[in-house]
Structures are given as structure tokens and as C-alpha cells.
């Protein structure tokens, strides 16, 4: 294997169900239901997915949801703000754990 991430694998996503068809079917049914319009629009859900894709650092998802956001009518300003939301949560999650560090350090220190 020359590279771990191959863009040509993205359209082959459904092949992941080949040796586990029932689980694959259940996953894709759920996945498609999640992204259908509900209380949130498809456009809003794609922006959330784009932010999450950055939080979980999935290049396939970033590729897919950048395209999906554009195709749902979003613009790069909105998409960049969504990425900042992910960044704020990721950064905030690290920082809030800093309180643990401070408590432990306080317990261990004079």
C-alpha cells in the first residue's frame, strides 16, 4: 500500500458492507435517515457534518462534506465558521482538562 488515504476510496464507501451486509445495510439506512431533512435542513446538517469531519480529522469526510456543503448552497464563509466551531470545541475540550492538570499539580506541589 503506497498511501493510507486514497481519494478513489471515497465513492467505494458502501463496499464496507460487503462482508457484513446486514450491519452495512443498517448503518447506511441510519446514515441516510440522519441526513434527510428533519427539524434541521439538509444544508444545516451538512455544515454540522463538515465541522465534525474536522473534529474527527477524517479526510474522506472533509472531501465529501465540503462538496456537499457547496451543493446544498453554503458558502466558504459559512463553512469556515463551521470549522471554527469544531476548533473551539476541540480547543475548549483540551483547556477544560487543563483544570485537572492544575488540580493534580496543586495536589503534588508545595
Amino acid at each position, binding site marked *: 500500500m503506497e498511501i493510507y488515504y486514497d481519494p478513489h476510496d471515497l465513492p467505494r464507501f458502501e463496499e464496507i458492507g460487503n462482508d457484513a451486509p446486514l450491519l452495512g445495510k443498517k448503518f447506511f439506512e441510519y446514515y441516510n435517515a440522519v441526513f434527510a*431533512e428533519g427539524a434541521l*435542513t439538509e*444544508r444545516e446538517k451538512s455544515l454540522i457534518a463538515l465541522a465534525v469531519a474536522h473534529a474527527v480529522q477524517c479526510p474522506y469526510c472533509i472531501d465529501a462534506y465540503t462538496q456537499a456543503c*457547496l451543493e*446544498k*448552497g453554503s458558502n*466558504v464563509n459559512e463553512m469556515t465558521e463551521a470549522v471554527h466551531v469544531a476548533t473551539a470545541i476541540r480547543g475548549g475540550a483540551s483547556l477544560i482538562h487543563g483544570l485537572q492538570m492544575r488540580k493534580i499539580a496543586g495536589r503534588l506541589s508545595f
Partner: protein
Amino acid sequence: MARSPENPAEGSVDVASGVVPFSRFLYEKGLQLTRKQTTTLQVNVGLLCNQACRHCHLDAGPGRREMMKGETVEEVAAYARRGGFETVDITGGAPELNPHLATLIEKLSPAGSRVMLRSNLTALNDGKRDFLMEFCRAERVVIVASFPSLDLSQTESQRGEGTFGESITALRRLNALGYGQEGSGLEIDLVSNPTGAFLPPSQAEAEKRFRRELERRWGIAFNHLYTFSNVPLGRFRAWLKCSGNFRTYMERLAAQFNPCAFEGLMCRSLVSVSWDGYLYDCDFNLAERLPMDGVKIHVSEMTGPPGPGTPIAVSDHCYACTAGTGFT
């Protein structure tokens, strides 16, 4: 020329575009593209435009000189009367830049057709043709306006600097004249197309969002919003190629083929006349110089609309009209 679906040599994938020829694609699916009743006459009055949009399939722009002459305007108006078309759809370029536009509209009115004017809004409101908005109102012309995005930077990357604000100003003027207002009978529709190598959003969802945002931000009302794919011809095709997007865009269009959209394609019910008076199955075939029935027929030679069952000339750009919700 239209490609023959019977030639098996044409079945292979085009390496450059990554897709099988459209004619072969239809053949393999057992589909035929033929006319139903032709109810719309589309008239391209020229390629001169005050904008040079990056998606333009006709390469229209300020440097173009192709323009429908007065004599052809007369011939087209006569054809419209002979043909009994329900709708006449005037396009360009920027149709407003053709000095014979008002004459054409006046001559079409007695034919009883619904007249649509495809406007980029900036040519309609550039201060050089102040009479035109009032004139359109008086003639009950339906305005079909380019408005690709609610976002300034997306719009201006496609259509040029300053176009967003000018479009908003023009829409507000049209609203003030009664366009888009309930009960006025004056219709203004918006056309949104992607600002790059991706497909358009769902028409219903985009219309809801445009209606809400245009009203909230600028107090603008409109009747309908149409979302269309960009067609890989002209300036857009050149950009797709030089940006390295051509192959993936063509593959994406082909992958999104929608049999329902295929049934309702506009070319089934429309005939398009070029600025020099020749007939095409659509404006995209006009861009490719792919004439109706494979032969150049002048509008003056036509006794009426092309008959139902007439084959429609196709090429690979037809993938754009059959993708997703299609071009109807």
C-alpha cells in the same frame, strides 16, 4: 453533429471526460430523446453581454459582436405568430444590449404568448436603458433573473465585481414596480447556478432559503427560484479543464443521471433560434453549433413548430441537463 447510438465503436469511455458518449449512454438505457409538443420558442438575440461570467456556456461578453439584426427580429416574430407558441423565452448574452429588443417584445405581444426575458439584472438597471423596466411592466414580460447565490463573494467570483449590489438594487426597483408582488400579475423568477464545479442544491430547499433571506436582508420578493447545473461548454468548459476539474465534473454529472428529469427536459418542448436565425434544440446545442435535425434550418423556412417525435440532437453536455433535478 449528433452522434449515432448505433455505432458500437462509440461505446467506450472518453478518456478526457471519463464518461461514455451521451448518445451511447441513452442507447444502453433503452432511452430515446424525442420531442413532445413544442410550446416554447427561445430566442437568442446575441452574445454581447456587459458581464463575462465564468460559467457562461456561450462565451458571451463585452467583446462579442454576434447580434440579432432587425430583419431577423421580424422573421422570428413572424415565426412566433405562425407557430402559436405558448411561451417566448428571450435570452442572450444580455438581451437588453440588443437595440431591437423592445421591437421584438412589441411584435410578440399580439401573438398572445407569455414573453420571458432572461436578464442578468445589471444590464437592465445600468442607467442606459431607463425605459426598459417600465416597458417590461407595460408588456407584462416575465423577468427571469440571474441570482446565483445569497453570498456576495460567491456571486462576484462568478459574475464580476459589483454585480451583487447592482443585482439587489435592480430587484428592489422591480419589486417597487410591482414585480413579485402578490396580485400584480407581474412575475419575476430567479435562477441560481453553482459558483464552480459542483451541482446545485435542491430547488425546493434553495427557494425557501432565498425567499427567507432576501426578504429578511433586503425586503425583496420573487415568484420562483430555479436551480440549474452549469453546462460544460464555452467559458465554463475551459475553466473546468484548466482547473483540473473537467473529468470529475463530467463523472459527477453522469453519476447523477435522473430518469425523471430526463422525461421533463426542456428540449422536448422548446426550439431555440440563434441570433442569425437558425434553429437548435436548445441554447446549449446552439453553443456547440449542433443544429436541430443535423441540418441548418432558418426560421423563415419553418411553417410551424417541429413536430412531436422529432429526434433531438445530443452530445456529452446533455449530461448536465439530466443530472439531479435537471434542466426543465
